[in-house]
């Protein structure tokens, strides 16, 4: 254990080793599973129609994730602005809503949206209910991201723009939001990773055709449970790993004072800690104005 080893520079050879060992792990896992189960259970994956089937599931997963993200940004933007700049009882309501939603497991929200609305006579399909529930939860998270983004803009800029005669909406529109949005992009990308993983939770209401449900109906037919889950995990990985690399690259490009961290969300934390080798980012939780 040498002190010099504390700072491992990432060289191309090391990257190669990392990739190699990742491949090694994958091979070990696959060998392990085939050791416990016969190789014929991998055979269904050689049929081309299997992949058109799984691609359909991937498309649905991406559709659900992206739709929920767009809805969350649209709802989260006003929530974040209200929480950052509002005074009085309405602000308390917004804070209460955001904090309660973020303290709730997403699976519980999905169940309540699906069965609750069904009791009220509104019958949503499993997919729609899941998208609505994901948007409810993630709009609260996006609200926090927006608040942290607005809070990270130097107060002097707002004061300068106000004293130059711009109204509050104009200040927001032309000074604060353009900068805040660009600082928020890494956080939004890593929220998309969370969303794509969370589309799998739609299984609980049934009747969906996203990737996990697709896989489940696949192994019910072929009886290759473990193999299918390995393939599902690899498919999710193939979507999310590039996204997490992108998010980290976007984050690492920014100077430290422009990095946001949203508390309580594991993927947000992961981006923030991984982006800066050697330092934990400052916790920007949106300063009060």
């Amino acid at each position, binding site marked *: *254990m040498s*002190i*010099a*080893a*504390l700072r*491992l520079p990432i060289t191309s*050879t090391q990257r190669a*080793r*990392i990739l*190699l*060992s*990742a491949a*090694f*792990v994958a091979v070990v896992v696959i060998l392990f*599973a085939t050791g*416990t*189960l016969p190789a014929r259970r991998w055979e269904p994956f050689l049929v081309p129609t299997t992949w058109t089937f799984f691609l359909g599931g991937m498309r649905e997963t991406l559709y659900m994730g992206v739709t929920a993200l767009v809805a969350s940004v649209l709802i989260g933007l006003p929530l974040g602005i209200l929480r950052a700049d509002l005074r009085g009882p309405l602000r308390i309501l917004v804070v209460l809503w955001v*904090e*309660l939603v973020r*303290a*709730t*497991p*997403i*699976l*519980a929200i999905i*169940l*309540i949206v699906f*069965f*609750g609305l069904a009791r009220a006579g509104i019958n949503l399909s499993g997919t729609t209910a899941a998208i609505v529930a994901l948007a409810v939860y993630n709009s609260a998270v996006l609200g926090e991201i927006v608040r942290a983004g607005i809070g990270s803009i130097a107060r002097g800029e707002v004061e300068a723009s106000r004293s130059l005669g711009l109204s509050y909406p104009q200040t927001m529109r032309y000074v604060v939001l353009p900068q805040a949005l660009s600082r928020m992009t890494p956080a939004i990308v890593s929220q998309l*990773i969370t969303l794509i*993983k969370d589309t*799998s*939770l739609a*299984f*609980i209401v049934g009747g969906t055709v996203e990737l*996990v449900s697709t896989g489940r109906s696949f192994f019910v037919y072929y009886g290759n*449970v*473990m193999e299918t*889950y*390995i393939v*599902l*995990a690899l498919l*999710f*990985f193939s979507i*999310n790993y590039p996204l*997490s690399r992108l998010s980290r690259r976007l984050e690492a490009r920014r100077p430290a004072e422009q990095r946001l961290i949203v*508390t*309580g*969300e*594991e993927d947000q*934390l*992961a981006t923030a*800690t*991984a982006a*800066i080798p*050697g*330092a*934990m980012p400052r*916790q920007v*939780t949106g300063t009060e104005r």
Partner: protein
Amino acid sequence: MPNLALQPLLENADVFVVGFRNTLFLSVVGMAGALVLGTFVASLRVWGGPFLSGLGTAYVEFFRNTPLLVQLFFFAVLLAPANLGVTRDPVLVGAIALSLYTGAYVTEVIRSGVLSVDPRQLEAARSLGLSQVQSLRYVMLPQAIRTVIPPLGNISIAHVKNTAIASGIAAVEILKAASIVETRTAAFEAFYLALVLFWSLTIPLAFLVSRLERRFAFAR
């Protein structure tokens, strides 16, 4: 406010007690496992040499970028009597899978906590005559702990919420308990009780974490 049917909930209080206990088990045991695993993998990533650190990276990236639900399903089958024969208890499987999932996030936090201490401080400590262990214990640890505590608090909030996903493998935690009671009595209020029970864990935890964040906020 609509009339709340509390009677069916009281009659099935035992189900909720089991659910709450299992959620606590998944939270505490799962998080403890994640801390042990995360510390171990983080030390591999920092001091383990190219191969072991590469293995650590592969673990972190794989578990972080795949859904917890898929991991739970996989381990439920893998550990079942038909395969490895470790256990068929869904709560135990849940605790193991949650440890592995959360452990990936803990690894990243602990690693960046260790790397946040300037290596020149350790060199200085060594040249002042402290042993390797002493310089880690008295120079690195006190600083790394300060950096690491607030994000670990945040991870544990996310972990408690993630325990609900263990209901996917039929572990009777709070949400599954609510579903059981709702099916049995048709009282939708069961889900509201589940919310309150989850909040009783996550909201105090969130308060604690925001206090710790303020306490440990410092300029480096």
